[in-house]
């Protein structure tokens, strides 16, 4: 027996709003459902940052015994590894959430709906922030009893570092997502690899001054280099370098705009080439 309800009394006739928080929250909900539905995924999110932190934590303990400098700069390696993980996880958070849609052949459904590509991109940034917090927070908390080091002692500068690295990692994630959209799932390994291209230049575990002279301007064109320089100043000298902070914010605005532009351009090309219906496993 087939029955169909009569039309709703007030059928939906939404105009094409340029931006809808509801649509963004719908996509965040979609990724949240995915995360919530899989305990192994949540464990995996926490696992790698915790392992990294433990290795570098024990190395730090060893170095404290060997070097007076390390003794003065207590916790600098742990802070570095935790901040690096924020950048790495935010990049992965965007790229993996994006890949989920390609793996599930869902792009056609999404973009035949009123969802706009930039709303999707914003939802990717939001869920990336959540995934990063889930991943890095347990490692940061575990460092307190294990090594008597609390990254939270940095106070407000930590919020500045976290936000800047989150945005930079996400911007790289958006650009990578654009590349995968453009070149297909054959390029998906970029999602994991791309952020490592900027790691050597970011001065995560060493000051930018150790890089060759000609490479230092390239490093300082990255927001991450300013963040890690600022982190070292905060941990070793207990000062917050406002200039470094402003540089990282300014550069992040540019990188985020570039990442978003690359993503939207790839989306436009995908619509022209008919890839939204074809892409998937």
């Amino acid at each position, binding site marked *: 027996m087939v029955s169909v*309800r009569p039309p*709703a009394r007030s059928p*939906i006739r939404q105009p094409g709003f340029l931006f809808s928080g*509801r649509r963004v929250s719908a996509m965040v909900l979609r990724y949240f459902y995915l995360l919530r539905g899989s305990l192994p995924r949540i464990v995996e999110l926490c696992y790698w940052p915790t392992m990294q932190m433990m290795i570098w934590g024990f190395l730090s303990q060893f170095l404290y015994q060997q070097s007076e400098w390390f003794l003065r700069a207590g916790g600098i390696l742990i802070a570095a590894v935790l901040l690096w993980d924020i950048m790495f996880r935010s990049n992965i958070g965007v790229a993996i959430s994006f890949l989920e849609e390609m793996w599930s052949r869902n792009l056609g459904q999404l973009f*035949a709906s*009123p969802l706009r590509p930039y709303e999707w991109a914003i939802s990717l940034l939001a869920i990336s922030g959540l995934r990063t917090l889930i991943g890095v927070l347990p490692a940061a908390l575990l460092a307190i009893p294990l090594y008597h080091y609390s990254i939270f002692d940095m106070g407000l500068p930590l919020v500045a570092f976290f936000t800047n690295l989150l945005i930079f990692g996400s911007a790289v994630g958006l650009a990578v997502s654009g590349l995968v959209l453009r070149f297909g799932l054959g390029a998906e390994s970029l999602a994991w690899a791309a952020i490592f291209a900027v790691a050597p230049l970011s001065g995560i575990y060493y000051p930018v001054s150790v890089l060759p002279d000609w490479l230092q301007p390239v490093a300082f064109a990255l927001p991450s280099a300013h963040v890690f320089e600022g982190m070292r100043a905060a941990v070793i000298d207990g000062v917050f370098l406002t200039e470094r902070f402003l540089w990282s914010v300014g550069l992040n605005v540019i990188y985020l705009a570039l990442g978003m532009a690359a993503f939207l351009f790839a989306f436009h090309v995908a*619509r022209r080439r008919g890839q939204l219906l*074809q892409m998937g496993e």
Partner: protein
Amino acid sequence: MSQYAIRVDGLAKHFGKIVAVDSLTFDVREGEIVALLGGNGAGKTTTISMLLGLLIPTAGSLEVLGVDMLRHRYDALPRLNFSSPYVDLPKRLTVYENLMVYARLYGVADPRARVADLGRDLAIDSFMKRPYGELSSGQKTRVSLAKSLLNEPDLLMLDEPTASLDPDTADWVRTYLKTYQDAHGATILLASHNMHEVERLCDNVLMMKEGRIVDRDSPKALVSRYGRATLEEVFLDIARGRPGPEPVAAQ
């Protein structure tokens, strides 16, 4: 308000040297059920993709529900929906989660109530809590249909809605679509290989071949003009290039 749900003029899509759709011109009136009929590679899915805004045409204009889809597609998208075997829903999300996400994307006022209603109407409430990826083809088709009806669309585009279904489920889906169309006065554009389905459901048929519309009429009129017993025979005449009557309103 336009009396046409779809107006297409000179629509073309080329992929490099391949011409997928070539100068299509057709109208679909509001409240009609129209079939796009043609063999594999005739251009049906490409045409639907362009109507949905998923694919940018190489040339031509298209208007859906009175909206120029090349300029203002977001004004029309909340009022239309689609279902296709070429897309899927996230497999790890449950049926309920999938429908809730899409209900919110379409701006449904009370997503929970709407999902619950569709769950009962389409007899999918017994597997609402199961991951979409674990469903059978028939169950997936029902869920996909539920997704396509979440926003009570004025225009429903269905690409092979009964492909890979057993005859019983396929019949059930056809009956549901007809009932929905009667209750809502909706327009349905249907791409199908199933002649029986088209004869049963559709007011008009657009016969496609190699990216062009080669004939159009009601199923009965086509059968009559070609002097055949069934629409399938007409389809075969056209697909195999047998000489037929002068096409009605050929391009």
